[in-house]
C-alpha cells in the first residue's frame, strides 16, 4: 500500500481544518473501537470529535535501527550486508510485503493484526545529517534550516493561548518539540504516584512562594522564566496530581518489564483516562545508539517498548478519550545499511515511523527504501518527508492547519 489519501485528507489538505472539523463533527456518535474486518481505512477516529483526540509523541533517542525493527527479511541483500546482526527470517513476525517485525515486538504484531499499527516507511528529509544532535534538532523544530529555535508543537502552543495544560512532557525536561518562543509544555515527573507531582508545602508557605515567583518588571529573561515556570507549576500540579491519584496505572503481566518508558506511558494513560484537557503528551526512551553489540541491546529495548506500548493501548480500551489517542514513535535517524565489525551499525538516514492507536488506520505508508540504491554514504534514501507525519497529526489529531506551523504544506498521510 502506498500513501493512501481519501476524501477527508484531501479536504483537510486543500481547505485547512475547517472542512475536516465540520466533517468530523458530522460523524460524531459512532462507537469508538468498532473496526470492521478489513476496514482499516475507516478508523473509528472519525467518530471522535477533534476536541477529544490526543497525540502522544514517543521519542527514541540515539537513532533506532529501523531495518532491524521492520525487517526486510526477504531481501537477500539485507542478509548479505548484515550477516553479523541480521534477524533470522524464521524469527521475525511477518507483516506482508516481505517485511517482518523484530521478534521482540509481539504486542506491535497484535496491533498490526488488529489494523491499529501504521508503519510509515522511508521517512526522512533532504541532505540528511548524521549527527544525533543536528538531526534530532531538525525533527524537533520541524525545520532543516538550522535557524529555527522553536519546536513544531511549541509554535502551536505559542499561537493558541497560555494554558500550560495543553501539552505535557513526562520527565524532568520539556521535549524541545513542545517548547515555543514564549510558551512551552508543562512537565510531570515520570512517576505513576500522585505524590511526586505535587510539592509538599503548607498553604501559608505556598502563598509566600507564589509571591516570590510573581513576574517582576526588570527581571532578566531567565529570572522571568524561572518565575513563570514556578507559577505554571502552581496552576497545574494540583490538577496533574489529582488526575494521577484517581486513575490506576496500566498493569503488566507477571515478569514483564517495561522499563522507564513503561512508567512514562503509564502516567500518560492515567492523565488521558482522567480526561485531562491536554492535547499532546511526550515520553522518551534512550539507548538506541547501537554502534556495537546491537542485537542484544536493541532487542532488550524493543522488548521494553513493546511491553510498554501493549499495556498502554490495553489500558485505553473502553475509554472514550483513550480510543481517540494516537501514539507516534520516531527517532532522529535510522542506521547504516551495512553493519560494522563491532556487531553494530553507524549513523544512517531514512527510517520507519510507527503510529499506534485504537483509531489508527493500520497498514504500510510510504515505500520501502531500496537496499541497493543508497546515497553516497551507504545510507537509505527517504521518500516521505517527516513533516508529512507532522502535517497528518496536526490536521487530524491536534485539529489545526498544518501549514501554519510547518511553514508550508506537506502531503497528509492517511493513517488517522
Amino acid at each position, binding site marked *: 500500500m502506498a500513501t493512501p489519501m481519501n476524501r477527508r485528507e484531501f479536504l483537510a489538505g486543500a481547505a485547512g481544518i475547517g472542512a475536516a472539523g465540520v466533517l468530523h463533527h458530522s460523524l460524531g456518535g459512532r462507537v469508538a473501537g468498532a473496526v470492521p474486518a478489513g476496514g482499516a481505512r475507516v478508523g473509528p477516529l472519525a467518530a471522535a470529535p477533534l476536541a477529544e483526540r490526543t497525540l502522544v509523541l514517543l521519542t527514541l*533517542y*540515539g537513532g533506532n535501527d529501523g531495518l532491524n525493527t521492520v525487517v526486510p527479511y526477504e531481501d537477500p541483500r539485507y542478509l548479505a550486508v548484515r550477516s553479523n546482526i541480521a534477524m533470522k527470517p524464521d524469527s521475525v513476525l511477518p507483516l506482508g510485503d516481505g517485511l517482518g517485525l523484530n521478534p521482540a515486538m509481539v504486542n506491535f504484531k497484535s496491533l498490526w493484526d488488529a489494523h491499529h499499527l501504521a508503519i510509515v516507511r522511508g521517512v526522512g528529509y533532504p541532505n540528511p*545529517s*548524521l*549527527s*544525533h*544532535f*543536528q538531526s534530532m534538532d531538525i525533527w524537533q523544530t520541524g525545520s532543516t534550516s538550522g535557524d529555527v529555535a522553536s519546536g513544531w508543537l511549541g509554535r502551536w502552543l505559542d499561537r493558541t493561548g497560555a494554558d500550560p495544560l495543553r501539552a505535557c*512532557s513526562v*520527565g*524532568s*525536561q*520539556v521535549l524541545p518539540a513542545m517548547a515555543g518562543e514564549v510558551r*512551552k509544555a508543562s*512537565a*510531570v*515527573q515520570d512517576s505513576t504516584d500522585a505524590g*511526586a*507531582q*505535587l*510539592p*509538599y*508545602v*503548607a498553604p501559608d*508557605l505556598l*502563598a*509566600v*512562594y507564589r*509571591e*516570590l*515567583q*510573581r513576574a517582576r518588571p*526588570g*527581571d*532578566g*529573561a*531567565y*529570572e*522571568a*522564566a*524561572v*518565575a513563570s*515556570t*514556578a507559577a*505554571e*507549576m502552581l496552576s*497545574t*500540579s494540583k490538577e496533574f496530581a489529582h488526575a494521577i491519584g484517581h486513575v490506576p496505572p496500566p498493569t503488566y503481566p507477571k515478569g514483564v518489564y517495561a522499563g522507564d518508558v513503561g512508567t512514562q506511558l503509564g502516567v500518560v494513560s492515567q492523565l488521558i483516562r482522567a480526561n485531562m484537557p491536554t492535547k499532546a503528551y511526550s515520553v522518551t526512551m534512550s*539507548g538506541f*545508539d547501537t*554502534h*556495537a*553489540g546491537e542485537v542484544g541491546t536493541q532487542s532488550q529495548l524493543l522488548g521494553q517498548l513493546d511491553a510498554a506500548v501493549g499495556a498502554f493501548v490495553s489500558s485505553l480500551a473502553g475509554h472514550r478519550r483513550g480510543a481517540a489517542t494516537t501514539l507516534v514513535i520516531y527517532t532522529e535517524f535510522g542506521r547504516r545499511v*551495512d553493519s*560494522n*565489525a*563491532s*556487531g*553494530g551499525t*553507524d549513523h544512517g538516514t531514512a527510517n520507519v515511523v510507527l503510529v499506534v492507536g485504537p483509531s489508527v488506520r493500520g497498514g504500510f505508508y510510504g515505500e520501502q527504501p531500496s537496499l541497493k540504491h543508497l546515497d553516497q554514504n551507504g545510507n537509505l534514501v527517504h521518500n516521505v518527508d517527516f513533516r508529512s507525519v507532522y502535517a497528518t497529526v496536526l490536521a487530524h489529531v491536534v485539529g489545526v492547519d498544518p501549514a501554519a506551523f510547518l511553514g508550508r504544506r506537506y502531503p497528509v498521510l492517511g493513517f488517522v
Partner: protein
Amino acid sequence: MPSPRADVALLYRRAGFGAGPAVLDAAQAAGFDATLEKLLAGLSAPDDHRPALPHLSSYELISRNRGGDLYGQSVDLAAWWVEKMATTTTPLREKLTLLLHGQFPTANSKVYAPIFMYQQNETFRTLGPGPFDTLTLSLAKDPAMMIWLDTASNVRQAPNENFGRELMERFTMGVGNYTQSDVREAARAFTGWGITDHSGVFVQDDSAHDFGEKLVLGHRGDLTGEDVIEIVTHTPASARWVTARMWSFLAYPVRTTDPVVTELAASYATDLDMTRLLRSILGHPWFLSPASREGLVKQPIEWVAGALRTFRLTAASFKKMGGAGFLVYALGNLGQIPFDPPSVGGWGQNEYWLSTATSVAQLDFAQSLVQFADLSPIDDVGAGSRVDALAELLGIDGWTPQSRAALTHVRHDIPSLAALALTAPEYVVN
C-alpha cells in the same frame, strides 16, 4: 554599577559553587584580580577537604560478574562528588571537572563500572587545567570513554564510527567542520584500541589496527589514533569550539562565531592551555557584563552543591531519609545526576532546566534539606536583618523588593525562610 563585592560574588558562583560572607570579605579586600589568581592557583593546589571515597569494586571483579551492587556504587559516587563540590577548598578545579564532564559526557548506564567513572573524573581533575590535546588523548584511551563510545570494539575489518564522530562533533570541533569521510578515516585510525580483559587498561592490538594510509582533515599518512587527536585539537575550528563551550558554561551561551570567541580563541590556540583559557574568560570585562550576570540558570548539580555548601550539609546529613540515595533521587527529579548525562551531547542549558516538574522537585528538596541544615548563621541575627543576612550567606547580591517582602513574611520561620530563598529567581539564576 555592580559593587566590587558583587563582582567577586559572581566570580565565586561561576568559578565555584558560591561563597559566604567570610570568603567574600576576604575576596573583596584582596580585589578581583587577586581573587581570580587565587582560584586559578587552586587548580593545582591540594584540596584541604576530601570526603572519603566510597567503596568501588575493581574492574577485575566487575569483569567476573562479582562487582556487587554497581548501581549502589554509582549512587554513592555521585553523592561523593556533589559533596566534594560543596566542601572543596579548590572550587574552580571542581567546577572545571563538572564542566569537562559536560564537555566529554560519559554515562555509567552504559559503562556500568563506577570505578571507571571515578578514574575519568580524576582525569578531569588532574589533566583538565593543562593542555587540551593531552586531556583529549588521555580521555580517548580512558576505559570509561572506550566502553561508552565503543572504541574498545573497533576493528579494521569494518570500523565503527562512534568515537571518531563524537570526537570531532562534540569534544573538539563542532558539527560542520569535518566531513563523513573524515569520520570514516578517523575511525580507521582508532582501530585496534581496546582495554585488557580483567585489568581494564589501555592496549593496542596491532592485528586489529588498520595500518593503511588515511586522510583526515587534509592530513595524509598512516595516521594513528594519537595523530588524529593531535590533528583535530589543533584546528582553528577546535580553538573556537572549546573557547565557545567554556565561555557558554561560565558566562552566557555563545556561538562559535561570537566576537568574544574570536578574541579568546586566538590566545587559547597558542598552546591549548585550559588554565590560560579560564583566566582569559573569567578576567574578561564581558564576564562582568549584565549579559553574563543574568546569563546562566544554575545546573541542578550546582544548585544542590551550593545549597549543601551554604548550610553545611553532607550526604550523611540525609541519613534519616536515605543518605546518598536521597540526594541522588532529588538530583534525578531535578533532571541531572552526575555520571548519568542523557547522551554524548550532555545536558542543555538555561531553559532546558526549567519545567513545572523541576519546580516541584526544587521546592520539595529545598524543604527537605533545611530540616538537616545548619541554620545558625541566620538564627543568630535579629529577625529584622535576617532576610538580608540570608542573601549574604547564599553569596548573592541581594533581593528584589518583591522577594524581600515575600521572604519577610517567613522571617520567624527560619527553615521555611531558607527553603524558599533557595527557590527564588535571584538564586536559581546565577
